[in-house]
């Protein structure tokens, strides 16, 4: 397994946001985490990226224990996150946002820049524009492009479709699937459970900080409990 999380706890003050979470992601897999508002999905990704401390448990990446590693060292190791709400550098240009994505890499990022513009042509026409002035969908493309510039070994996506019009949601999911087909390992957090389970190899259901169900995407999509709780069926 590329990523192995065992017994992970995380707190906000005295509030426990994750309790004893076990999640694993294999090389090349697309794993989804679904769950309601406040289930702890974002907290799990923040803890994986090292911007929120784990209070118990271990995170192993590529065989090594990274539980106490600093956030920037995790990026260098290849764990790269597209955070909830995009979190762009609003006043900086689209291109600066993308270049900053490659901050931990030594080589010049021209080639990768070209790849991101090819993947999201809308960004190429707006490369000089402040990222904050783009539409929601384009901002999500910048956020994803910025993460790709880091050449991730494990891409963490936190609700990439949130707040987007249906047409754009489809486009984002298409991009996620394309990345998977190119071999990128992805951990995808989504409230849009139907779409996420449809493209996931495997998935976990998170409820108030604990994993309550796990299985293949197809199996969870067919599960009666999941259908009632998360798919509104």
């Amino acid at each position, binding site marked *: 397994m590329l990523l192995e999380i065992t017994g992970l706890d995380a707190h906000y003050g005295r509030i426990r946001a994750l309790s004893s979470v076990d999640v694993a992601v294999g090389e090349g897999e697309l794993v989804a985490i679904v769950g309601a508002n406040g289930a702890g999905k974002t907290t799990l990704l923040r803890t994986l*990226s*090292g*911007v929120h401390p784990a209070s118990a448990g271990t995170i192993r990446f590529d065989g090594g224990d990274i539980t106490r590693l*600093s*956030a*920037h060292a995790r*990026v*260098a190791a290849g764990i*790269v*996150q597209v*955070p909830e709400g995009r*979190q*762009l*550098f*609003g*006043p*900086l240009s689209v291109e*600066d946002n993308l*270049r*900053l*994505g490659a*901050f*931990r890499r030594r080589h010049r990022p021209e080639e990768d820049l070209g790849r991101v513009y090819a993947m999201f042509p809308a960004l190429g026409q707006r490369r000089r524009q402040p990222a904050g002035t783009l539409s929601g969908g384009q901002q999500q493309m910048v956020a994803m492009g*910025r993460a790709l510039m*880091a050449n991730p070994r494990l891409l963490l996506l936190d609700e990439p479709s949130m707040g987007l019009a249906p047409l754009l949601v489809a486009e984002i999911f298409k991009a996620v699937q394309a990345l998977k087909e190119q071999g990128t390992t992805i951990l995808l957090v989504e409230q849009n459970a139907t779409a996420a389970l449809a493209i996931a190899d495997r998935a976990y259901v998170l409820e108030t900080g604990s994993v309550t169900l796990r299985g293949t995407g197809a199996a969870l999509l067919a599960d009666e409990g999941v259908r009632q709780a998360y798919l509104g069926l």
Partner: protein
Amino acid sequence: MAEFLQYLVTGVTIGSIYALAALGFAIVYNASHVINFAQGEFIMIGGMATATLTAAGVPLPLAILAGIAGAMLVGVLIAKFAVERARNASVVTLIIITIGASIFLRGLAEVVWGKEFHRLDSFSGNAPLMLGGAVVTTQSLWVLGVTAALILATGLFFNRTMAGKAMLATSHNRLAAQLVGVNVRHVVLAAFALSAALGAMGGAVVAPITYSYTEMGIMLGLKGFAAAALGGLGNGVGAVAGGLIVGIAESLSAGYISSAYKDAVAFVIIVAVLVFMPGGLFGRAGTERV
């Protein structure tokens, strides 16, 4: 007219030093949201080190470099041991910490260098130039030239280099900066080092005009703060403009009203900014580039 021009020259000269200090306030504020009231001490260290080292026979350029290096070291130490330790403290606590650091540094400077005034010769002779009836000393030209070069270099650093952009990015969105792999602790240290270098260089070039003494940083630092507030805290271009405005306002009021009110000008500006336009003349950081 010649009189007015003279006041203008004086104002722009001293305003340049305020501008460098204000730029230091802006850089540190952007990186850490700390208002570093020890900024004036960087100016003092630059001035004192240059004056005392040259008096001891060290060549001027080396003396200046030593002053800058010393100030940068002090800046990094303040960031590391005072500000970083108090990471989760309130803004007020952090301000008090920097005020404490500045008092400590003045005390230490007094022990090392004594209480007396130190003279430093002009960098290149004493023959003044005449400019439309105003007297311009060669040292004024040094101040203006060095300030312009430093401001330009700072602008290029933030807008053209990845390290500079990473610092800007951190000020705009700290979480996102961490997520692209920026070591935000290093950004804070670099900001203190950079602001210390700007202040110390300012102190070295202004020393032949003002003399240097261990308390020279108090007023220069406070006026730099007035300039930074006027320009909109965290706004680099505003800081430079604010510095020049404070310098000119002070020089004109000293000339046309009374030099007794000279220092009051900066404080009237601080109060006016805080009361009437908390965002400063040019708006706060967030939408502006440093």
